[in-house]
């Protein structure tokens, strides 16, 4: 308990880092994901297959591999960024591929008459998407996006594998510090705390997603 009080500031910083990483990833992923999702519906075969390929590739690869690819490849290409940015890129790529699939599904679920009506009103394809289809589609994909956010918060823990200082990492550092300075390990207690904190963040999100899912049934 005393250890916790002494390190609470440090641990809290870890939680904030985790949340920041999750939220920034979600924002980037929403932009890319909606773009890629719309492109998957493009009439041009080349464009749509590239967009689909992107989604399938990054949904197929384990997140750990995507993370390592970004982390090890960027320096090879002469781009030096810290592990936070690497994690942000990798997780954004992963979640955007998932969002794009949800977007495609949501767009496909909109009745084709909507497209026809919009066209007959003289709206261009882009305008149809922007003003008619996407606002309706967005409501339908909301449950999955919230579910994904919970998933994303959990996936940010993987960034400790490339040395990012998120909540899990700061908890590990506290454990090590106590081991070195006082002897005796508090790994059990700290990991229970870590599980608890993640649960408190993710559980409401999952509940929310579940409720929305049910209300659209």
């Amino acid at each position: 308990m005393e250890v916790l009080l002494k390190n609470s500031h440090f641990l809290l910083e870890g939680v904030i880092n985790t949340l920041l990483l999750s939220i920034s990833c979600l924002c980037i992923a929403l932009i890319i994901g909606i773009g890629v999702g719309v492109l998957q519906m493009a009439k041009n075969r080349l464009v749509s297959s590239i967009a689909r390929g992107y989604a399938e590739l990054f949904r197929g690869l384990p997140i750990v591999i995507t993370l390592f690819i970004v982390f090890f490849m960027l320096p090879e290409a002469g781009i030096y960024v810290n592990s936070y940015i690497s994690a942000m890129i990798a997780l954004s790529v992963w979640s955007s591929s998932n969002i794009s699939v949800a977007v495609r599904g949501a767009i496909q679920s909109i009745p084709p008459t909507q497209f026809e009506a919009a066209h007959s009103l003289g709206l261009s394809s882009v305008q149809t998407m922007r003003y008619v289809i996407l606002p309706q589609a967005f409501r339908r994909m909301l449950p999955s996006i919230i579910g994904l956010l919970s998933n994303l918060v959990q996936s940010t823990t993987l960034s400790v594998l490339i040395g990012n200082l998120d909540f899990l990492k700061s908890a590990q550092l506290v454990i090590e510090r106590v081991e070195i300075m006082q002897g005796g390990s508090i790994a059990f207690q700290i990991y229970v705390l870590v599980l608890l904190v993640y649960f408190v963040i993710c559980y409401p999100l999952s509940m929310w997603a579940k409720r929305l899912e049910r209300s659209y049934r």
Partner: protein
Amino acid sequence: MSRLSFDFGYIIQTLPVLMVGLKMTVFISVLAILFSLLIGLSGAAARTLKVPVVSRIVAVYVDIIRNTPLLVHVFFVYFGLPIIGIKLDAVTVGIVTLSLWGGAFAVENFRGGTDAVSKSLIESGESLGLSRWQVVRHIIVPLGFRISFPAFSNTAVSVIKNSAYMTGIGVVELTFVAVDRMAYDFKTYEMLLAIAVIYLALIWGASYLFSRIERRLDFNKKTVKGGKGRGGFVEKLALSFRRGN
């Protein structure tokens, strides 16, 4: 650019080492998928039949596992449990945590399936004079299992992908081997490309295998489609998401 040439020979040369890692990945994944299937089926049974205390326990277990990160489970079991006297080696930790993780998702998968078996079918079974157990045995299980198998196969594929988490505790699986080689030889491009291709092949191979099983299970498709709750837009979307991890 630190290097300009791409060394295919190197990939060929390290294949035997990668295969050692692949074997471990497959070993852990197969065991974990089997255990998840067991946990999923028995957990879903307890939930559907509303077995008094067990049903609550299963619900709490599912909520905890689904809402906390797998990597924390792994670290908790590997570094935390020895403090209270439970020591497991890294491979066992991998199998245990992955099984518990996959099991929690499988419970939900199979429960979704049993829920989707239409109430009228169950009622008509009961009105024919079938006992509770016979209804379960002849109606809920065969139909529910078929309906929920596609969802379970997504979970199983996620288990394979998530076996890569075990790199964090030093299990010598595919990812670990690759990162280890990169530290020695600095052939980053080659190694990353190689494991990306191997993982994709493994995962697509597994997906194909599962879709074959799904088709096998689906021999009287009409009956299965009769179940409510499937095929709805949100369900499909949710299904496609469960693969996310």
